[in-house]
């Protein structure tokens, strides 16, 4: 079975532009989460979606938004890009319902560079 897949793998944007990142979860997983990983640090939580509803949001500005589709795939949108948005954006899926204790499985991320 395929793992979590993310596209694109790399992206270069300029300040002020908008970007959309895509994620397909492991088959059968209904929960998708997004994390931002700045070089040299651990991933930071951005969003969690379960059954197409937002179930959690991290400490990120409103320029960050996401959605989950009926097939459980997800998109992360970032508007008005800043240099500080340069990071590895990770998508993770899990088979748990909210509150259950099951691990997140991560994709290999999208490397976003803002110039």
């Amino acid at each position, binding site marked *: 079975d395929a793992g979590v897949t993310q596209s694109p793998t790399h992206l270069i944007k300029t300040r002020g532009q908008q970007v959309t990142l895509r994620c397909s979860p492991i088959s059968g997983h209904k929960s998708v989460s997004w994390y931002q990983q700045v070089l040299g640090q*651990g991933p930071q939580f951005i969003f969690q979606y379960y059954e197409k509803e937002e179930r959690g949001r991290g400490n990120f500005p409103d320029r960050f938004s996401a959605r989950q589709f009926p097939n459980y795939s997800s998109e992360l949108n970032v508007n008005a890009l800043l240099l500080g948005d340069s990071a590895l954006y990770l998508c993770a899926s899990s088979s748990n319902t909210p509150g259950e204790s099951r*691990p997140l499985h991560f*994709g290999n991320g999208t490397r976003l560079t803002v110039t």
Partner: protein
Amino acid sequence: GESVGLHLPTLSVQEGDNSIINCAYSNSASDYFIWYKQESGKGPQFIIDIRSNMDKRQGQRVTVLLNKTVKHLSLQIAATQPGDSAVYFCAERGKGYNKLIFGAGTRLAVHP
């Protein structure tokens, strides 16, 4: 690929030795903990997890120990191999929350 954890603390071990990676977590209410391994250019890979009602759990060549009294988590890797070289992160989930909070990470360097 991109280098993960350029300025992280590093644990250097000889191939075949046992490795112990430590992690202090922040929230005494956290009820679930996970260890991840991250290689350059890749996303974090699940290694092992443990719930707060346990203090030890074993997997293949790995053991996680949880000490709730001092909010400490450790990952033991037996017979460390060159393929174990990576950055290791612990993550905690607070009770009632859906997000994972990651630690700063430790780089494990295995020397032949």
